[in-house]
């Protein structure tokens, strides 16, 4: 083979995808269907998902709209966590507490300070991101089990503040928030549940576009570099602590927005919404869906919405005792998690990717390393 011929297309591609290993040219016919430019590509995808979600919301009943909204806020939180854990390699057992920060910020600003909802949701995101700076600064000094322990303490301790200061945070009773009012232009009979689903799904789509861009770009690469080898990343000139804090801040901001959406849906911020199980099931969700992938976060979110309900239905149909019924969802998470990790260590998304690779053999697909990077963003 003529060497010059082989190298020519290689160089052109490397300029777009610097981390691409030299594995030879491939036909790119399938890729060309989407815009090559990262931002345009993700905006287009978000538009398509937005239309799909819109159609889904108007064709579903009120309760399923609520479930959509729940899946959307779970996705928002999971997407942030999967960037932190899957991409940057930092574990957090405290994301439930960060959601609580977002939720309480929303409730306090709306109910006590009388702010309108949308600026409040932005503010709640910013406030939680600031909390993320603090947590991230501590986290960047900790590794492995110590990081897990510190964030676990956050998950256990932070919701307790509500009980410690009932005057400010309403104690176990929580803070009530009036339901969001759909704009009058949508008509007087527009269902509240659909409006809630729209708000939560818009938040999720915004997070999708931002994170998908981030993951494919320079920041995503630095995250991965540190996850894969801290020393090598440092030698390459990266400030490891700063990048780790940045990852924590981004992920906290997502958790904050998720908490704000949760308040929109449930109309209450109370410690009971943020037990330790929430943090643990968020972590379970990203592992279940597929670590480090936004599509995996979608699967994780669906699992978090549907698994508890199915398990409760199962428990009820077997008329198990109340204590068993209450704990079955967590036990089921555990079982499903074990099953997924044994059968498909890359999570649901990894398994689907494997199936897709079998169905459409390599000749027509991207090389595997490139594909990982490409699909990470989706």
């Amino acid at each position, binding site marked *: 083979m003529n060497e010059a011929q082989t190298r020519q297309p290689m160089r052109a591609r490397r300029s777009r995808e610097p981390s691409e290993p030299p594995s030879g040219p491939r036909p790119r016919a399938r890729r060309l269907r989407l815009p090559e430019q990262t931002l345009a590509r993700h905006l287009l995808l978000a538009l398509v998902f937005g239309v799909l979600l819109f159609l889904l919301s108007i064709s579903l009943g009120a309760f399923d709209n609520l479930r959509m909204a729940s899946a959307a806020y779970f996705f928002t939180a999971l997407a942030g966590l999967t960037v932190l854990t899957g991409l940057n390699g930092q574990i957090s057992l405290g994301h439930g507490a960060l959601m609580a920060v977002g939720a309480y910020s929303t409730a306090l600003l709306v109910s006590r300070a009388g702010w309108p909802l949308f600026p409040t949701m932005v503010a709640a995101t910013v406030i939680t991101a600031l909390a993320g700076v603090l947590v991230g600064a501590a986290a960047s000094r900790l590794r492995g089990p110590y990081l897990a322990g510190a964030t676990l303490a956050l998950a256990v301790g932070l919701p307790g503040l509500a009980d410690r200061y009932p005057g400010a945070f309403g104690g176990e009773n929580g803070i009530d928030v009036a339901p969001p009012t759909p704009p009058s232009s949508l008509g007087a009979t527009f269902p509240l549940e659909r409006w809630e689903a729209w708000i939560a799904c818009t938040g999720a789509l915004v997070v999708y576009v931002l994170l998908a861009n981030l993951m494919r770009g320079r920041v995503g690469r630095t995250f991965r570099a540190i996850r894969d080898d801290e020393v090598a990343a440092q030698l390459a000139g990266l400030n490891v602590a700063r990048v780790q804090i940045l990852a924590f801040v981004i992920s906290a901001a997502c958790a904050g927005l998720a908490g704000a959406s949760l308040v929109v849906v449930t*109309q209450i911020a*109370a410690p009971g919404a943020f037990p330790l199980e929430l943090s643990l099931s968020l972590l379970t969700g990203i592992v279940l869906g597929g670590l480090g992938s936004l599509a995996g976060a979608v699967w994780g979110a669906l699992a978090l919405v549907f698994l508890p309900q199915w398990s409760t239905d199962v428990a009820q149909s077997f008329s198990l005792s109340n204590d068993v019924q209450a704990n079955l969802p967590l036990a089921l998470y555990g079982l499903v998690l074990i099953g997924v990790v044994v059968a498909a260590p890359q999570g649901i*998304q990894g398994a689907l990717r494997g199936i897709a690779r079998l169905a459409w053999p390599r000749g027509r697909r991207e090389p595997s390393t490139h594909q990982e990077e490409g699909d990470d963003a989706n």
Partner: protein
Amino acid sequence: MMRIRTRSVLAVAVCAATATAVASCGGGGSSTPGVTKTTVLIGSHQPLTGPAAPGYSEIAPAAKAFFSYLNDHGGVNGRKINLIYKDDGYNPTKTVTVVKQLVLQNKVFAIWGGLGTPTHTKVVDYLNASKVPDLFVSSGCPCWDDGSAHPYTFGWQPNYTIEGKILGQYIKQNLAGKKVGVFYQNDDFGKGGLAGIEQQVPKSQIVSTQPYEPGNTNVAPQITALQKAGADVLVDFTIPAYTALGQLTSFKLGYKPQLVVSNVGIDPTTVGGLLKAFSKGKADTALIEGAVTDGYLPSTADSSNAWVQLFKQIHDKYDPKAPWDGNVEYGMASAYTFAQALKAAGKSPTRQSLVDAVNKGGFTGPGLVPFRYSKEEHGGYGGAQMGAVKNGAIELSGPIYVTDPGNGAITTSNAKQPAPGADGLVG
């Protein structure tokens, strides 16, 4: 990737369609949700787990047992009552989820007996906005007692302020001059009761009021403060678990005040069981012996009462695993009132006709006290009889007091309890 995402959307659509199909099986056949020619579907949120579960988790199964008895005797106007109750763990956030599920997915006709002040306050606005009858909340919070703000919501047991006033009157008359301390749940339940006490007992006599948060099991700071303030009389507006925790802590501190407990926190079987569990078998009902309380239903120990006999029979046949105690009686009595309301709502009940029937009032039954239902007053029983824990059971005695939740005087009533009819329903 597009393909995969499309699949996930498809998955949602399929799940949703299945769920909708399952849900619609419950409702169909009539324009009123939850009502068919032969059935009425009602729902409830209950603390089957969590801090309020001991005792209170028996209420819904007892109500279901009563409905089963009723259904076996022909139901109400030919319809069988089907109750589904869901666990909210006394966690307000969960209450919101399960109630929306009951209304939107199960499409229940009405909510019966949703339990708890902190929990139910989070769904009252939703239920009223959705015009779902919210009958006989299992809580005496003064917040239900407002027909103009919440036309679809009705309390059932005495408003906590009424209860507080009657307990306060007892303290004023029988424990005059003694220092009074109040241990209460930090929400509208505890605060409502405290308001009633403060109306009756002179301010100078109340030396300390200590709130607790349900979920935090360390009550030593509160009990120590009450002991330090020198309270000779301790008034508890607590759920059973906190009555037990408070008494165990007092016992450890060597603090022995005269106990006065709200009806909701004193069922001897429940509190005795909790005392045993918390102390690993070392304590029992001896720690609440002599406690003063009040009641609006006949004591479960009063086996000569026709209602107690009926409920005991139903309990033995339909709900034999549960202990025979005040919670079971509560569930059956509240279910009885619901059946009465449904009967009064007419041959083809609608959500509005059910609410109108309760507004009209005139229900009697297992209660010792008359109801206060009218278009404005939605508070349930209007008073109570005083009693005390004797030999591990509640003994009620003396006149039946009635009053309002405002500044009205406490008067005595000579309401007579009717005997239950053959099918379990009167009139």
